[in-house]
């Protein structure tokens, strides 16, 4: 049937609004990923640049990524040291550091920075508005190498290429401890404040891996806890006839309306009196005592299993727990995975709980660690922030593509989206 109606179920014109909407919905995610792959200097350009571009200079036949030319703050001199670590390589220094044919160079010796005077030949004076190439790509560095090189603007070329270095850098940046808060941001980001040297990494007790393992620990324990306890309770509410089960079920339904913020003040008091504040315990122990929504979901499923199965097992001498464990649970696997998946998502995305209960950085979860990092930066370093956000989202996206069916089924049968 040919219909002019664009909402006809087989009309190909339906693609037009769909494509438009799909583009609108996808732009934020695309922008997230592209920003996370851009070098720092490209982020925040007006108008924004989409594709990540990197600047290079060619030195001895090798393409070396550099930050693009930027004006020198003050007049510099270009000199060629004849001794020191890298004789013969031209470097740019402040005029004050070049006196009587020698330059002052800071060299890292073991864990100290030493000043040395190295003989050098003056090549030329560089006016303040000249361009230089600042900073080599971090991984190219050894701590001893000088970092400012004078390059003609024409020597720099551009390539469209993603910068995956943002991810390790974001991981390093998230590696912040209490002590780190007092340190300058530039150092926190792994960048030396002094152009000639790069200080060795400080010993850090709290790493990105700590946040990750905290999150995974809470997630795994709460998934196990809620699956075990909610399925037991759902069994008790659906497969056993006992006085009061109807009342308990109605109370359970009613509690689904009580939001966490209503309970958070007294719950804080409960956990405080148990001495659990500052530990991960408040985030996973409650899961072992069942969740109203999970109980409801599993109960609805258990009710669809024919009672004859239980009766047959009973005749064979199976007790209640045996029926639950050997008959009902294996049949309920799809529902159990929905519960497990939603619980995992809830833990992974939770922010308010960790914010209230966790006080020490070594117990932070990923979401809290990321927020703390953002509040330290206060609206800068977007490439790293987006890199860190990608790291937070990626596991969820991967999980989605592996368990797409469970996601869609779970959401459409429960009418909720794991929130």
């Amino acid at each position, binding site marked *: 049937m040919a219909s002019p109606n664009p909402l006809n179920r087989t009309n190909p014109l339906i693609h037009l609004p769909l494509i438009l909407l799909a583009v609108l919905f996808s732009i934020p995610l695309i922008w997230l990923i592209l920003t996370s792959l851009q070098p720092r200097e490209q982020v925040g350009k007006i108008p924004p640049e989409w594709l990540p571009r990197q600047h290079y200079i060619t030195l001895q036949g090798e393409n070396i990524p550099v930050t693009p030319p930027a004006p020198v703050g003050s007049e510099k001199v270009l000199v060629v040291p004849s001794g020191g670590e890298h004789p013969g390589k031209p470097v740019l220094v402040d005029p004050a550091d070049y006196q009587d044919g020698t330059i002052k160079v800071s060299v890292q010796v073991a864990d100290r920075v030493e000043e040395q005077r190295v003989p050098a030949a003056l090549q030329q004076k560089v006016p303040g508005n000249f361009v230089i190439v600042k900073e080599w790509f971090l991984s190219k560095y050894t701590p001893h190498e000088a970092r400012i090189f004078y390059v003609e603007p024409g020597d720099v070329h551009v390539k469209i290429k993603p910068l995956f270095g943002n991810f390790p850098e974001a991981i390093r940046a998230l590696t912040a401890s209490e002590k780190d808060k007092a340190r300058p941001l530039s150092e926190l980001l792994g960048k030396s404040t002094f152009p000639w040297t790069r200080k060795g990494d400080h010993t850090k007790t709290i790493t990105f891996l700590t946040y990750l393992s905290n999150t995974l620990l809470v997630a795994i324990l709460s998934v196990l806890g809620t699956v075990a306890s909610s399925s037991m*309770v759902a069994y008790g509410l659906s497969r056993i006839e006992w006085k009061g089960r109807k009342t308990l079920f109605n109370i359970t339904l009613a509690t689904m309306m009580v939001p966490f*913020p209503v309970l958070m003040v007294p719950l804080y008091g409960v956990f405080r009196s148990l001495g659990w504040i500052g530990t991960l315990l408040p985030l996973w122990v409650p899961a072992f005592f069942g969740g109203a929504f999970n109980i409801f979901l599993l109960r609805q499923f258990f009710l669809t299993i024919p009672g004859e199965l239980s009766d047959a097992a009973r005749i064979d001498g199976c007790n209640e727990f045996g029926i639950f464990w050997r008959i009902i649970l294996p049949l309920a696997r799809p529902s159990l995975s929905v519960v497990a998946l939603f619980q995992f998502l809830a833990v992974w995305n939770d922010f308010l709980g960790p914010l209230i209960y966790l006080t020490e950085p070594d117990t932070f979860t990923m979401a809290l660690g990321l927020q703390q990092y953002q509040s330290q930066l206060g609206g800068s370093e977007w490439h790293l922030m987006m890199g860190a956000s990608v790291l937070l989202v990626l596991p969820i996206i991967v999980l989605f593509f592996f368990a797409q069916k469970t996601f869609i089924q779970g959401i*459409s049968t429960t009418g909720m989206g794991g929130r």
Partner: protein
Amino acid sequence: MTSLERSNLRNGLMFCAPWLIGLTVFLIYPLVAAFYYSLCDYSVLLPPVFIGLDNYVDLMKDPLFWKSLYNTAYFAVGSVGLGVIMSLTLALFLNSKVKGIALYRTLFFLPSLMPVVAGSLLWLWMYNGESGIINNGLRAIGIHGPAWLADPAWAKTAIVIMAVWGAGNAMVIYLAGLQDVPTSLYEAALIDGAGFFQRLFNVTIPMISPVIYFNVVMSIIGGFQAFTQAFIMTGSTGAPERSTLFYVLNLYNVGFQDLRMGYASAMAWVLFVIILVLTFAATKLSQRWVTYDR
């Protein structure tokens, strides 16, 4: 009581034991305790001191309470209203038999999987007044965009738009509902000469109205709990000019920053009552237009 009844009672209680404990310790006790604290001056550090209804009286006179209530209602109504329209539209488009539906569905659904913290950071970056992609996009078509999260007149709307981006979740629910509507109903309507809008409002929407109802109620309850977006994008003070100071954000500040736990408990109970009333009202309203029989 027969022996079967007795053993059933024992088994039932045994299976429900974790929940009976959980319900008492993590739900009923906190709810009752919150009510008691709400009648007290309580700072967690010192034992609560009973002060009667003072907290509630102060609450009614507290401009920040009213401000946060207004902000939250604005957000809840805006995000749920626009969210329903967006997710229903998406679901209606996707309820067709053309190619590539699975791909579209994935594209619309993915944003709703975004953890709130990451999503808030992303939108904070996109809403940047100067170098943000939204204002630069608007500039390209000749519109001078507002400062979004820095502008008190736009900050709430900005957070609503971000919430609508997550409509994919509800879309999946509505799509499942739409696919359950028997085609015979549409065929009958077509024979009767019903146009597109007549079919939409007389067949489609009544048929999925229970799904819409349930989703709207849950979304409003969720909307009243908005916290993380504002905390991350505009800070715990609900800047600019407290235009994004949501109810729970205010509650968090009062309780966990100022340590006025008694006052925070009064706020918590008011929130609880608001949610109860809303749910009750929605149930009453739904009896007038939700169609449960098929």
